[in-house]
């Protein structure tokens, strides 16, 4: 397999994995497939897909400006790939927004309902308009191959200058408006990132990134298709990127000094390290190395530096978009594998489109030779079965289709029902109850529970005869099992039925139809309830009823046990406050502890002496 087919195989795997995750995203919602939450409402899909995607598309307006405005014709060779990247980048941004928006089918509301005060309103309009401009800018390239579109092509070419001008204007606005998005959250974004001139910083870094992205792309496709890279054409870009990076550093650090935040640069902490890492990959390393002419003019130097710089700017966007946010009690956000796979899937799809357009149309000056179209291409055999896989193009399609199906199936397998369908509930184990005169019932150990006066309730309800009112004897001869032995989860009902216990004594397999309906698949839904056989499971006087084998959640069990009785007594005694929450939930752990200590002190002082008198 050559380089292209290997890469395409990996990309198709990425697309396949994202397909099944995408289905889960739209069926079960954002909570099931992301690690987002009320404290961090934006994550990877905004930081990487949207903000990174827009930044990566910056090459388009830089190169069109250089060639069509400044008339530097020697750079003409890289215009088409740059515009194609920008187009695909923006298309990917729009597409990934469909995943991130909670109500993606309402995305058109942006056109109808206007709120010009919102930075996101500007961002949305820039995406829509610039995507249109990019489509019109790139259309002449595929139109070359269709003689019928000659008139359309000629018309678009006449419109080129206004289109290029509009593209530059819209890009300037859009690159900077992504920075404006964060101006309204000065308390959320860390002071090392938050600045009133964020729009300017975003614009300058986007210009530098655009230059590096064009360089990276040229070298990468050259490597892929064994094409000669435009090293000499790109060298002036590397030189210019140096000055832009220097400007960026100057603006960013002087802004920190003017705002009086310079001391944060040296105070140790996670955010400081994050900042310095970002500054190093984004500007310092490329800047220092680009200043060496030998590095700047070599293919390896250009492409590795461009890769570092591109990573740096995208990392800056991810920082601003989520990593550098101060969160109030929300924990640390780490994207889930489902979020990452959607992001990678969208990138893969965009890359596949890029490769397709490049192979099919006249994007580079020398179109890459399509290995599949070569009649002298050696026939390929499956390594295991030594079967001929057909003509190369068919063989590739077979392999890619297989990759998509395998990856989609793997994604489907990885999606656990616990995560997708639990509705955000996670099992919380309950601690065993401890006996005594006063029970401190606080299953989730948050310090707020109920101090249940066990002895008082017993005395009131008829001493030993009252046990069965609450201890419902679910287990044979049971008197004092911990509630938590069945009601094991704080909030979720669990299976309290022991199938083996019931099956063996009744006659193993023969006994199936004593409980299950004959002729149907034996499931819990067609089995009889507990009360069918255990007639005296719960005494008639008790306030609770047990019908099924499901042990309700601990919280529900406690509430149902108490509230059934309390509701009756509230009517009998005409005391409606008996069913209010505050009747039982009135004390916190601290209060109880304090009272206990106080009680012990008084006993020690007024009661019998703790130590026997001396001399005895």
């Amino acid at each position, binding site marked *: 397999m050559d380089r292209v087919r290997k890469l395409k195989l990996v990309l198709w795997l990425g697309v396949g994995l994202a397909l099944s995750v995408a289905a889960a995203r739209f*069926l079960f*919602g*954002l*909570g*099931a497939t992301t690690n*987002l*939450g*009320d*404290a961090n*409402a*934006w994550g990877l899909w905004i930081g990487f897909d949207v903000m990174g995607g827009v930044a990566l598309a910056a090459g388009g307006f830089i190169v069109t400006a250089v060639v*069509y*405005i*400044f*008339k530097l014709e020697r750079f003409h060779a890289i215009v088409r790939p740059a515009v194609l990247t920008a187009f695909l980048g923006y298309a990917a941004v729009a597409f990934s927004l469909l995943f991130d*928006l*909670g*109500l*993606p089918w*309402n*995305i058109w*509301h*942006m056109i*109808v*309902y*206007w*709120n*010009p*005060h*919102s*930075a*996101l*309103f*500007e961002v*949305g309009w820039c995406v829509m308009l610039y995507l249109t401009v990019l489509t019109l800018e790139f259309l002449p390239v595929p139109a070359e191959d269709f003689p019928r579109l000659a008139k359309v092509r000629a018309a678009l070419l006449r419109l080129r200058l206004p289109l290029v*001008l509009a593209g530059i*204007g*819209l890009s300037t*606005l859009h690159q*900077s*408006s992504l920075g*404006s*998005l964060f*101006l*309204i*959250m000065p*308390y*959320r974004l860390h002071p090392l990132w938050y600045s*009133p001139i964020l*729009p300017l910083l975003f614009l300058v870094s986007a210009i530098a990134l655009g230059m590096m992205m064009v360089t990276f792309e040229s070298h990468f496709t050259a490597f892929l298709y064994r094409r000669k890279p435009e090293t000499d054409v790109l060298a002036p870009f590397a030189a210019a990127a140096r000055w832009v990076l220097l400007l960026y550093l100057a603006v960013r650090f002087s802004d920190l000094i003017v705002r009086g935040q310079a001391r944060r640069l040296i105070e140790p902490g996670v955010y400081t390290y994050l900042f310095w890492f970002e500054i190093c990959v984004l500007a310092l390393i490329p800047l220092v190395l680009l200043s060496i002419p030998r590095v700047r003019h070599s293919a390896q130097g250009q492409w590795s530096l461009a890769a570092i710089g591109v990573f740096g700017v995208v990392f800056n966007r991810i920082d601003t978009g989520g990593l550098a946010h101060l969160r*109030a*009690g*929300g924990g640390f956000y780490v994207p889930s594998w489902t979020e990452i796979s959607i992001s990678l899937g969208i990138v893969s799809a965009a890359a596949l489109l890029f490769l397709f357009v490049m192979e099919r149309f006249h994007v580079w000056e020398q179109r890459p030779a399509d290995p599949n179209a070569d009649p002298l291409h050696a026939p390929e055999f499956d390594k295991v079965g030594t079967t001929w896989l057909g003509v190369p193009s068919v063989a590739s399609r077979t392999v890619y289709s297989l990759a998509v199906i395998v990856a989609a199936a793997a994604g489907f397998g990885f999606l656990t029902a616990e995560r997708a369908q639990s509705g*955000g*509930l*996670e099992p919380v184990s309950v601690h065993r109850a401890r006996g005594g005169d006063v029970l401190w019932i606080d299953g989730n150990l948050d310090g707020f529970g109920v101090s249940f006066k066990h002895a008082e309730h017993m005395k009131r309800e008829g001493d030993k005869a009252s046990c069965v009112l609450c201890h419902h004897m679910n287990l044979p001869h049971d008197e004092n099992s911990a509630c938590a032995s069945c009601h094991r989860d704080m*909030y979720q009902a669990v299976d309290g039925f022991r199938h083996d216990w019931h099956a063996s004594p009744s006659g193993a397999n023969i006994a199936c139809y004593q409980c299950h309906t004959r002729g149907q698949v034996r499931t819990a839904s067609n089995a009889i309830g507990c009360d069918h056989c255990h007639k005296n499971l719960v005494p008639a006087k008790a306030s609770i009823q047990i019908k099924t084998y499901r042990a309700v959640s601990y919280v529900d069990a406690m509430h149902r046990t108490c509230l059934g009785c309390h509701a009756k007594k509230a009517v009998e005694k005409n005391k409606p406050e008996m069913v*209010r*929450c*505050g009747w039982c939930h009135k004390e916190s752990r601290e209060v109880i502890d304090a009272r206990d200590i106080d009680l012990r002190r008084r006993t020690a002082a007024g009661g019998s002496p703790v130590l026997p008198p001396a001399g005895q």
Partner: protein
Amino acid sequence: MRAAILTDVTKCIGCEECVVACKKTNRLIADVPRRWDAGDGLTSRNWTSVVTGPAQSHVRKQCRHCLEPACASACPVGAMHKTEIGAVVYDAAKCMGCRYCMMACPYGVPRYDWDAAVPYVRKCILCYERIRIGQQPACTDVCPTKATIFGDRDALLAQAHQRIAQKPDLYWNKVWGETEAHGSSVLYISNVDLSFLTDGQAIPADPLPQKTAAAMGAVPYTFCGVLAIMGTVNWVIERRIKLQKEKADGQSPET
């Protein structure tokens, strides 16, 4: 009248009757802790909660109904909206789920239906349907100790300052919500420091929407400026190329 709520932390006993009343009035279903909760009791199904502050104090959390709401300014489709009477309300029919309001709110109040395939943003709406017909919100209506009361904002501010003046030893000399981010319709007076509600950060008096306003105001000028500069540069360069060409054409036959 500009509707407002004044909460006196010293009077709150933490009975959570306001929470119950809120859930009943707004028909919010029962809730249990979820993975995506922020941990302060507010969720898409709990629009108010009572959290424990310093020194075992009970502090009620709810939407502050800012006078210059950041959420309403941030929403690209105008789904969040400050009504004339004072409540910040939400139009679910307009929302497209971008969650910018949640990011913009300085108090982190709006919550999301993370478990739903069709999710909406949820928060306290100051019982807009009740106050519009002259009733008071459900929470202030049921409060047994009158720790949280409803009224005109100016009258409540005056009352807050009066209470502080009467017991200067008990209260902090500050009405939370009077000036922060240009003030809010929900006010607090307290015997403990309430800055824990904003993670210890002091919120200055300048309205948050203003911070974006400068950048947004520059948009038309930037666009026209960039177009004009680029257009002029292009014109100059093209003309120079043309002149050079003419010169070359004119000279070549002679030489």
